[in-house]
């Protein structure tokens, strides 16, 4: 048996460590590299958040008008404001449209593209299909919104109404965006799902590249069907990505603005308001910018809380796996 000698791993000697200017021989020098980023984050993120939070405790008409201290008035008013409460209720539906449905669909689609299409028809076709799913993500939202407005026109000119008329043989003229709350919010949700679906598909497919093909082959030889492979191999392997997608899309859902702005302008009768759109409306046409700031701050707080919960859940899951 040939003998093998392993070279001991060489320890990094102090003289090999990167030379960073240090004051007093401490680790202060490292912080020099941190300063530009910290300044940028401070100016672009923390300063506006703090200014906004401060403004939420004032009444302010805007411009050069004087600010008047309001204490918690703006914050307490939020909880008596039916439009604000409705806007947050709508977020639950937005989460369904931007998080739950795209993540579930994304899992299935990514697994099918990777495990079925990719293996049977080759990588090129699965890459092509992945790109088509991702297309709505790169389309400017304004373009997508205008296209959907055209599809959802309330009269018989609307593409969807024409399609339904063709299928049913009757003259269908559903008022998708202006009729009832339910049709307007469902129409908006469909747009969100369509835009969002490509994102988890791409992330999950990238994650699936980590999976050894032998694993799938072995499970197939053992007689596992597609769903069993999906549950036993695909899902556990890409769990970190599921967390990432869940977190990022939940944050996007809480801040959602453009689809509502373009499709419904919050209508009919303000029923499709979401918090960001409501904050925008109050900043632009309201007379109390402090109240608008309270709305915006409340979104920031909710996003922060949700992010902490997600990250903790992910850490817990990783510890369990380890």
């Amino acid at each position: 048996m040939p003998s093998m000698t392993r070279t001991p791993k060489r320890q990094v000697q102090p003289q090999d460590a990167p030379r960073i200017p240090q004051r007093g021989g401490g680790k202060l020098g490292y912080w020099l590299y941190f300063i530009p980023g910290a300044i940028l984050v401070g100016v672009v993120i923390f300063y506006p958040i703090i200014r906004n939070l401060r403004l939420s405790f004032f009444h302010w008409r805007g411009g050069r008008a004087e600010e008047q201290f309001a204490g918690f008035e703006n914050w307490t008013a939020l909880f008596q404001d039916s439009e604000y409460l409705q806007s947050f209720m709508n977020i639950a539906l937005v989460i369904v449209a931007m998080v739950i449905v795209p993540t579930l669909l994304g899992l299935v689609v990514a697994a099918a593209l990777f495990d079925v299409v990719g293996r049977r028809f080759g990588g090129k076709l699965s890459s092509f299909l992945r790109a088509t799913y991702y297309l709505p993500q790169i389309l400017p939202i304004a373009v997508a919104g205008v296209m959907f407005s055209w599809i959802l026109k309330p009269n018989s000119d609307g593409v969807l109404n024409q399609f339904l008329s063709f299928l049913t043989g009757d003259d269908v003229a559903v008022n998708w965006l202006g009729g009832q709350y339910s049709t307007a919010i469902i129409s908006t949700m469909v747009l969100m799902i369509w835009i969002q679906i490509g994102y988890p598909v791409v992330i999950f497919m990238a994650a699936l590249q980590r999976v050894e093909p032998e694993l799938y082959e072995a499970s197939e030889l053992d007689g596992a069907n597609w769903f069993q492979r999906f549950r036993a191999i695909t899902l556990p392997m890409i769990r970190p990505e599921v967390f990432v997608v869940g977190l990022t899309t939940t944050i996007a859902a809480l801040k959602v603005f453009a689809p509502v702005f373009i499709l419904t302008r919050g209508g009919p009768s303000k029923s499709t308001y979401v918090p960001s759109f409501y904050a925008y409306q109050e900043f632009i046409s309201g007379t109390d910018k402090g109240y608008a700031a309270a709305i915006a701050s409340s979104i920031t707080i909710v996003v922060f809380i949700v992010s902490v919960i997600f990250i903790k859940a992910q850490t817990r899951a990783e510890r369990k796996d380890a």
Partner: protein
Amino acid sequence: MKYRNRTMGALVAVGALTLAACSSGDSDDTTAPTGAGGEADFSGETLKVMHYEGDESAMGKAWNLAIEMFEEQTGATVDLQTTAFEDLNASAEQLFDSSDAPDVSEYNKGNGTAGQLAAIGVIQNLDDAYAKYGWADKLGAGVDTIAKYNEDGVMGSGSFYGVPNYGEFVFMYYNTEMFEEYGIEVPTSQEDLEAAMQTFVDNGITPLTTSAQEYPMGQLWYQLALSQADRDFVNAYQLYTEEVNWQGEEISYATETLSDWVSNGYISSEVSGLTAEDAGLQFINGEVPMFYSGSWWYGRMLSDVTDFTVGITNWPGTTLTPGSGGNIWVIPVESKQPELAEIFIDITMSPEVQALLGESGGLPVAANTEDVQDPDAQALIGLFNEVNDRDGLSFYPDWPTPSFYGDLNGVMQGLVNGTFTPEQAQSELENYYESYVSTVR
């Protein structure tokens, strides 16, 4: 208007009108833009001018001439910055108070817009400029109302903050061929109008188009209320002179009539999902025989409608009509060239610029009326003269509060799709209105 499509080309010559005639001064004595600009040399200086008119629109042509004249007379250069109407509405509050502010800008008039900017101190008080250039003498009473704002931003009193130099109003566009086909006369009373609409419905045609997602239906609602109202109602509603009775006969009539019209099929329930552009196109495409909207559509109707002849008429059976002076020139508080800005505004009021505005399809405030020859222009002027002769200009329904445009559209959508009964719609509107007006009344 808050919401006009700024790219609409007004292609047909429309003339001058009575706004100038009803003013205290004679339009003939409109002074040429001598002022400081005629004598001082501003070579090397730059004036940043901002507006949102399309090059081919009446105002766009007029402002281009004003820029040309300004550069000739002062030796200064104009840095023209064009923007979108909606973009400026959304950003003016910050822009005018920043180092990027234009020196002079066109802006939307009314309590919720120019009034709001005046109240928060981001546009300049123009009292001295009005005295220096005599602009007040060129404006009629209905027009100068939108130039003055008090400390709360309420129009009609206080100091001058803007200079309007054209007019606009709302009336009925109709399809003359469809009227003739079904033997319908142009309505001269509300009863005639409803009978005409019933005839169309009986023939399977939706008679009247509008939009509840944007401004047209709010203006229709206001017109119906105005048809039952007097000037005191307008003053109470727009100038807060007294409390508005939101369950009173004027507003009840408007909401109930609209609700009935939707039930009767005079207006399709689809209008809750239509934009102003959608509604206008339905009329232009000959799908609907009547469209109630403003003079800003006129040039486009005459140029885009090819399959029928467009008729225009004032709303039947009313003294009061939505309408006002057009957008105003304002000088932002951060203007670096306020003196040159005043000279520029004065040039936009000159007979040459005003005449071109009229000839290009606008309704100027300071031009001679005799020059107008075009029959389409004469028709529009005739209609506008009718309104002015009866002192009918009553501003627009969304002016009372900064957020009333969205509030009103939302309620109109609810009225159309059945979310609100007429009584609920009135209560909703009252809540929105009072939440702001009670703080400034």
